[in-house]
């Protein structure tokens, strides 16, 4: 009991300090932190290609899709939909055609059954060109069943899912309160206009879409009740962690009874036990090291044309203008997974990404309003795989006794088999009402054995000291490929909500 109290005090002190630090940062024009410093090496594998934007156009990309005729569709923060030809060629010389305008922050865009299904601040809209002149003429409001009374009440919508439903993640009011209905909830809008609540507890989403297993996820930002940015699963009837949106349980019984209030200055792993609806973050993106405002994401379904990372998620970051990877798996019924650095040095704050029919990754956004590392006010860029194979950690999955790592190239078995090649650390965040959280409860799990597969593409790490509920960070700097190459990125971060009881079935 005594020791528990002491921990409580320490946590309190730490969180007070972090609040103070956050305020100080805010006052100073917050630092964006150091870059990874890998851009120069990354360039050999993934080349940044600028897609030129006509001079008179301020193209603030907020969402993308590809039309059946192969054209690129762009939804913008300025409320436009552009159709673009020629953005995917080796040396892009795109032509922009205005399809629609006058909308309000098109942060969700998907084409299905002859129409665009877009999410703008106010509503989900079906946008159709009925007379075939290649310009929209019908804007049908499918659902606007949410309150909208503050500019920061952003609405991020998915592309239509297999049933045609658009999932909408609703940002809180001023990102701290929930003043009008359903701010902080995710709503599912069916094609015939039914609006079905999915879950509560969202803070400030900046991207929404399926993970590599087809399950709907969203990108959450660091802030109150969120120690760091993370990917979370939009579980039906779930609670995503920020309780300020509990008031809307009074308006509907669709999600069942109002969950218990989580306790502030606690831990997610602890509160999960108390609040059964609480959905833990599936993939934590450690603050600054892995972005500051993770945003739009998409799964690589290019079948290898984008390199070795098929069926993984690629996610941008608004503040740091970087692209990262993420993988997820379900362990004991809970989603969790890892994130990996991928490419830095993009030109602007990234909001959306889209794989092209050619298998390249298109990225766009704007740097207005918030601190951004990328210098351009807005930009449209492409990452093209050069065909050269980077030496990277392909994926990390949890194992009952540790982790299973796979690689893009065979590893040097001798180096990989040495336990001291692998440096691990673990930490978690204070789950609290205050802004963000320091990384706390640090431990040093130790690799006791590293077993390399025969083909050198997999390494099984037996780890002493796994901590359930902690982010496990990996530093594999000493690792070399069979040809002596160092890893392009030696770090990765696995969020271990659950430890598998049996070998994970994959």
């Amino acid at each position, binding site marked *: 009991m005594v020791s528990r109290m002491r921990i409580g005090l320490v946590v309190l002190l730490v969180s007070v300090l972090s609040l103070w630090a956050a305020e100080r940062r805010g*006052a*100073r*024009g917050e630092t964006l932190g150091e870059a990874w410093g890998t*851009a*120069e*090496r990354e360039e050999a594998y993934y080349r940044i290609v600028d897609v030129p934007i006509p001079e008179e156009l*301020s193209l603030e990309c907020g969402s993308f899709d590809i039309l059946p005729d192969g054209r690129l569709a762009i939804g913008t*923060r*300025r*409320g436009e939909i552009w159709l673009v030809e020629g953005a995917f060629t*080796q*040396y892009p010389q795109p032509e922009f055609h205005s399809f629609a*305008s*006058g*909308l*309000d*922050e098109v942060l969700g865009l998907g084409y299905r059954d002859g129409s665009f299904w877009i999410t*703008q*601040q*106010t*509503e989900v*809209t*079906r946008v159709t060109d*009925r007379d075939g002149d290649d*310009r*929209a*003429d*019908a*804007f*049908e*409001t499918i659902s*606007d069943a949410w*309150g*909208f*009374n*503050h*500019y*920061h*009440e952003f609405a991020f919508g998915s592309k239509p899912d297999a049933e045609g439903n658009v999932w909408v993640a609703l940002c809180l009011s001023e990102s701290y309160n929930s*003043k*009008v*209905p359903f701010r902080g909830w995710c709503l599912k809008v069916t094609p015939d206009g039914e609006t079905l609540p999915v879950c509560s507890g969202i803070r400030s989403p900046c991207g929404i879409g399926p993970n590599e297993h087809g399950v709907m996820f969203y990108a959450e930002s660091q802030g109150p009740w969120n120690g760091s940015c993370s990917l979370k699963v939009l579980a039906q009837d779930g609670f995503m962690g920020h309780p300020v949106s509990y008031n809307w349980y009074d308006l509907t019984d669709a999600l069942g009874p109002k969950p218990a209030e989580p306790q502030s200055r606690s831990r997610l792993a602890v509160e999960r036990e108390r609040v059964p609806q609480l959905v833990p973050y599936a993939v934590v993106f450690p603050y600054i090291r892995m972005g500051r405002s993770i945003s739009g994401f998409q799964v690589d379904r290019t079948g290898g044309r984008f390199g070795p990372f098929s069926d993984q998620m690629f996610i941008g970051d608004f503040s740091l203008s970087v692209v990262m990877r993420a993988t997820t798996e379900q362990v004991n019924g809970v989603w969790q997974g890892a994130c990996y650095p991928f490419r830095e*040095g993009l030109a602007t704050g990234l909001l959306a990404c889209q794989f092209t029919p050619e298998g390249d990754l298109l990225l766009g956004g704007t*740097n*207005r*309003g*918030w*601190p*951004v590392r990328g*210098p*351009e*006010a807005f930009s449209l860029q492409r990452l093209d795989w050069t065909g050269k194979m980077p030496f990277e950690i392909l994926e990390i999955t949890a194992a009952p006794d540790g982790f299973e790592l796979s690689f893009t190239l065979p590893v040097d078995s001798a180096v990989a088999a040495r336990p001291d090649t692998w440096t691990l650390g673990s930490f978690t965040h204070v789950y609290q009402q205050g802004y963000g959280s320091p990384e706390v409860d640090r431990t040093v799990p130790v690799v006791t054995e590293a077993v390399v597969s025969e083909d050198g593409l997999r390494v099984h790490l037996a780890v002493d000291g796994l901590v359930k509920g902690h982010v496990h960070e990996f530093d594999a700097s000493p690792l070399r490929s069979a040809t002596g190459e160092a890893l392009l990125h030696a770090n990765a971060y696995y969020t271990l909500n659950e430890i598998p009881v049996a070998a994970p079935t994959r």
Partner: protein
Amino acid sequence: MRHRCWRGVSLSGGLAAITVLAVCGASGLGGLQADAAEGLTAELQREGAAAVLADARAKGDAISGAVLFAGRELACAICHSEAAADRMAPDLRRMTAAATDEHLLESLLFPSRKIAEGYELTIVQTAAGKVVPLRVLGEHDGMLVGREPAPPFARVELPLSEIDERAVSPVSAMPEGLPDLLQSRQQFLDLLRYLMQLRDQAEEVPLAERPSDSGTVSHDVAGAVLFDQFSCRACHASDRWEQVAGGSISVDRGPLLADVRSRWRPAMLIRYLEDPQAVKPGSRMPSLLAAEPAGQRRQIATELAHFLLSRGSQDFFSGEAGQEQAARGAELFHSVGCVACHSPRNDAGRELMPEESVPLGNLAERASLDALVRFLEEPTTVRPAGRMPDMQLAHAEAVDLAHYLMRPPGDADPPQPATGDRGQAFLVDADLARAGEQHYRRLACDRCHEPKQHGSQLVAIRSGTAGCLSEAGGAWPAYTLTAEQRTELARFVGSPQPAEAEPLATAMATLRCTACHQRDGVGGIDPDRDHFFQTTDINLGPQGRLPPSLTGVGDKLRPEWLRQVLVSGRSVRPYLKTRMPRFGREQVEPLIGELIAADDATEQRFPDVQDEKQARDAGHELAGSQGLNCIACHTFQRKPAATMSAVDLTEMAERLQRDWFVHYMLAPQSINPGTVMPSFWPGGKAIRRQILDGDTQKQLEALWVYLEDGRQARAPRGLVLEPLELLAGDEAVMLRRSWPGVGKRGIGVGYPEQVNLVFDAEQMRLAAVWKGKFADPGGVWRSQGHGVVRPLGSSVVQLAEGPDLTNPAAAWEATEVERRPPGFRFGGYELDALRRPRFRYWADDVEVEEFFRGSPQPALQRTIVLTGRDVDGVRHFRLLSGKTVDRLDANRWQTADGLTLALPGSLTDRLEVVATEAGQELRLVLPSGSYQRELEVAYSW
């Protein structure tokens, strides 16, 4: 698009009427005409010196003057600046006390009265009858050398023998009537005050002597560079090279030959191997076959070629060269920086400076257009040593440049377009290739080319009559060296003295940084190439076109930025037409370290900022128009200033070290003599005394704290944002956003007839109307978007809140949480051919459609279609609202705001005026049951 003005000045004298071109950045000619109506110049001339000078001293603002001096209108800085030493005008930063106040005034008002010695214009008439105005720089080798008195101030050489007559012009190159370009007498006082300050400052803070351009590297460095460039190190170890270069940059790697098959025309490759100089005069590739019996050379070269060509998979192919592309390529070649190393060419393609340039040879003869494009885009794929850097060409630029380079030199006619030139089909003969491989090893080609065995079996350096440096032939590669190179190399390898380490100088010379940059007096642009360094912004003076000095650059730039520039090609000077190339990481890694090490001045410690917020606010004030007006010249967040496009303020702190910033701000010209940047703390004393009590250190600290916010820095006062205007054209224009007094679900529509409205899709009502321009979306399209859209026109009329369709039996009032009336659903809109929306919504059992159009009055026509389905009870539809609603006549009603509603004469429905909290409303009374009503009403105001 502004036009630069050229003024004609008539001269009399031995020459017939001659026109001298003088330049000034003028936006209008009127004021410059001698017979123009009384302009400012004439006024000032009449006023008398004493009064003007007294006013200038008392009321002139030197900061405004500095901006005018550099500004677009006067553009004084184009001619008057340090780097213009051999151009048109004296360097005003070197004025002495002789430049009295009176003299300064006289120069402005009567420029031709006293022309500074050496800056006279000379009018030259050639035998061919051409008349050329020049500032004469001198004579040499039978040529008269001068500069043209107009941008780009081209250097001109005329054979003395062809000059018929020359006369010194009594008219100054400085235009008369310049003050007429100013907007007020005050501006003239400002300018004059600035000139006085410049003079005083020149006395107080003597400029560092301009380092001479003649500075050269030491013999050791020159030797080391040659030793490396000729790949001497492939065969010879040299302690001396190690000592001098200190393990720094090396370019001693020959081109990669793996894909030579796709790059070289086979026949030319054979000739090249047989005698490199015959194909590419000046090539650093030695002849390896010189020692072979003459009769066998062709055969050996052929066998070698078969071997080399056997290794590639891609056949030679050269696309069609086009004239249009070549023309654009010529422009690129002579502007982006190619001619810093390669020879500029005349229109006929003849190289003008082949002796002093890196040779290219006749590319048309031997190269593939397609391979050349690939090479220009990524030179290190062929030449990994990186001596040819990546010029950051876009693909289309690389294509254009390649087309130009494929023109045969000296050939005035464009090459015959060869459609898909595959060269002569080349079949590799396996036997010949095998023999070639033997030669490749025997002749030690692999010492320079891949695959390499560098370092093995090094050969001792011989001196005397045998070996590479001798002019004799023998069992060694036959180099073609100039006498100078031979001497330098001989001195280098033969010197018995231990050498000093000069890794930085070696690295800079090896990578040819010094072809464009000057550092500590070494390097800089060759005067004969100077005019190829151009700018997009002549207002910046010489620094607008010349790559910056690298003196102290390791102290100036933060290491991360230095790396960004060299490795990633970051650039902050969009106005330089010459591009900073991008080097490979491995090539410049040592250079970065050397620069930082060499310039490692002791870092000054700055005390902690006492009150950061106060400092930032003061910095913000200093940057703005009420302070030092930095934004008058500097770009801010990528938006160029009105005057010029000097380096972006929001990138300063990311680039610069604070020490350097402080030193520079105190005396810009002492660090960069060519800058047009004035000092705002002359002699260390602040000019703006009302900010931070005029404390120099505090002001500098405040500016730095402000700049540290980088791109997030608050926009300084006076920064003119481009106005955003969203206007209706032939079609209607819409914007769904937050509208004032309407809320977040407003839908604004602007009609071509200059009437506009906001429909409130939350409360289902016509919310506002106005006339004129549609909207300024700045409030929602800037920053986070937290503002509102501003109606641009006039006569905005706001209408009552709450839905237009109401149930009088069930009162409803909006709350903070519930802003939409219960039972209402918005259905969206459809656009007609003119993109005018037809809105649709439902209120329980009534469906409403509304369509608006403009009519020429201007007035707004509103069509309302109401469909009731078994409606229980009466409904009202509001047609007009205001403080009061009065009936004007049978069909017209008007509000206190002057908004008039015209109803159709045929209307038989009941109307009701209802008093509300806000005033009065005119409502149409709808029956219960099922019905369809369509009516068109009109609003005017």
